[in-house]
């Protein structure tokens, strides 16, 4: 019979099993003795503290569990199963707001870029080949405008054609 079959036959005390040789037998006896000695020495801990700790860790807080309001914390009731949908609602809302903001900026910026009054006239109309555009300046205005009094200017304004004005250089 092999050694392992012999071991399977019966389960001896740990200190007595696997006695392959004297030294190993001595070591395992020593291990058992040391373990017994240490077990007797080791302090006995109170399991109650751990029980309380594990229970507290596993139990969700009462305020969340039963919907009790915590003083000082305003809390709207969340319907069951809405946790995931609430998240997606926030995402969709943010996306909509973002898209709206971008659209509004494009709407504001683009027309302004097209007909910006601050832009020089030369940049508004691309100069064609061979035509040199001169920007309008105060010095190029006729002298009657410069020397005109307020009533005269008003009268001139009344004479100006209303509606689309095409400027020719």
């Amino acid at each position, binding site marked *: 019979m092999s050694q392992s079959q012999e071991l399977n036959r019966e389960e001896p005390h740990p200190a007595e099993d696997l006695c392959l040789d004297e030294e190993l037998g001595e070591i*395992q006896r020593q291990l058992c003795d040391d*373990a017994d000695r240490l077990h007797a020495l080791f302090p006995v801990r109170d399991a109650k503290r751990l*029980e309380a700790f594990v229970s507290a860790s596993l139990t969700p807080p009462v305020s969340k569990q039963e919907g009790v309001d915590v003083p000082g914390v305003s809390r709207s009731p969340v319907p069951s199963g809405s946790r995931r949908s609430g998240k997606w609602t926030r995402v969709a809302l943010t996306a909509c707001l973002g898209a709206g903001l971008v659209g509004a900026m494009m709407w504001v910026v683009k027309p302004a870029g097209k007909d910006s009054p601050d832009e020089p006239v030369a940049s508004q109309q691309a100069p064609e080949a061979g035509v040199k555009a001169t920007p309008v300046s105060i010095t190029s205005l006729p002298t009657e405008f410069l020397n005109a009094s307020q009533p005269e200017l008003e009268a001139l304004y009344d004479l100006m054609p209303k509606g689309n004005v095409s400027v020719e250089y």
Partner: protein
Amino acid sequence: MNHPHTDLNELPIEQVIDQHFDRVYRAALILTGNPWDADDLTQETFMVFARQVDRFEGRSAVYTYLYGILLNLDRRERRKFGTRNRKLRVVWESETQSPRSSPEAEAPLEVSEWKKSLWSWVEKLPAGQRNVLILRFSEQLSYEEIAETLGIPLGTVKSRIFHGLSTLRTLLDSRLNIQEGLREFVSRGLPSIDCQA
């Protein structure tokens, strides 16, 4: 084999802790050699058990399942931080480095006793051998229970016990050889050095 609680879902966690705390804590102390690490390890073992209670199918005893968690956590901890970071090492080194500090004040009795015992040598063994030796000679589990706890065949349990004991013997022999060598060196005295040459 005795399976007292096959349906664990009906068993409150407080009851599991109450019934198995002592043996898990004892095993953790033998494994780590100090009460601080043993406390942490025991607490974490029961926390993991409580979280994974659904996975327990009741095919093994609760305590073998708990031992399995304990040994896995210990292995993970050793892999993560190494044995150098163990609090025990701090105590150990503070004892040897500062002679003014009282060892009793820093290291409890069980730590110094553990260091004197063979279990401090078991810590130096590979994880597989160390675990079977602890389960067999400290916790006195049967071969079948050890196989169940570690999820290994029965033959592997026996061979690991044999190899564990053999490695332990080699370690002890080497220690004895070093001690004898030192003794011999001291008894012979320092060799005289001829400075004039």
